[in-house]
């Protein structure tokens, strides 16, 4: 859906499931997704349930320090947030603006 809206301009990666392919999250696959989506502008992460957020925080802390500053977890609904974040990012907005725009979708 994000691809259809913004085309190929924004690097995009997704992951889900635990290391056995069941429901859940895996820090390993989050790390790979961050690598796949990495650019100098940074990475905005959208998550669904609690474990995904905790595992994403863990994955961020495992990054080199200069990268950590350029990765943000957006407190926003995953589908709407991803579309809005990608749309902002495709227009060249900074990571901070991308995150804040996505988070405007969340109830205050």
């Amino acid at each position, binding site marked *: 859906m994000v691809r259809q809206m913004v085309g190929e301009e924004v690097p995009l990666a997704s992951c889900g499931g*635990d*290391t*056995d392919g*069941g*429901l*859940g*999250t*895996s*820090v*390993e696959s989050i790390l790979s997704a961050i690598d796949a989506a990495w650019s100098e502008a940074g990475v905005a992460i959208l998550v669904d*349930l*609690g*474990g995904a957020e*905790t*595992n994403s*925080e*863990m994955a961020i802390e495992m990054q080199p320090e200069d990268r950590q500053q350029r990765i943000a977890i957006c407190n926003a609904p995953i589908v709407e947030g991803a579309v809005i974040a990608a749309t902002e990012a495709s227009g060249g907005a900074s990571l901070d603006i991308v995150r804040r725009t996505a988070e405007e979708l969340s109830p205050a």
Partner: protein
Amino acid sequence: MLEDAASRRSLIEAVAQDVIDHAEELTALDQAVGDGDHGVNMKRGAEAVLADIDALAEKTLPEALKAIGMALVMKVGGASGPLYGTFFMTLGKSLPEKPNSTDTVAAFDAALQAVMARGKSHPGQKTMLDVLAPALEQLKNDPSPSEALCVAAAEAAEATIPMRAERGRASFLGERSIGHMDPGARSSSLMITKASKILEG
């Protein structure tokens, strides 16, 4: 205590095996209040630890704890992977190679604080913290592995039954989370009890 590879091996093996042996019980508890994956997840983590047991036992105590934490982070998944991973990694970072009882209490305290920060939680929200915090209080009274520590951990896990969950997926159940033991509290209690019994000898 734990200064030779054989004793580290027997401690790590016993705790990991105990988690595996209780996987079905943990899953049943989690089916009542969460998504039912706690047993499977913890078992996967414990199996990863056992698979690496030779290398782990050869490491110093702090290095072994850090490696166990990392294995749990990478293998457990769910929220418990980063939470238990953080607990063991912080223990490893905080303990010297030959800890005395003051070191042990300080490291346990640091690990508890790190889990609270990671989970953005505090005791009283029906989580593993409701076992770890009372266990720390008991260790402050008596820093040695003891029957009193096992009792404190077991009672603390029981005490999560009437609590209302305020963190994690169980919090979505609101009032309906009351009446079930928290699975993370149970797994913490299991590990503390098994470790205490092995260390008591």
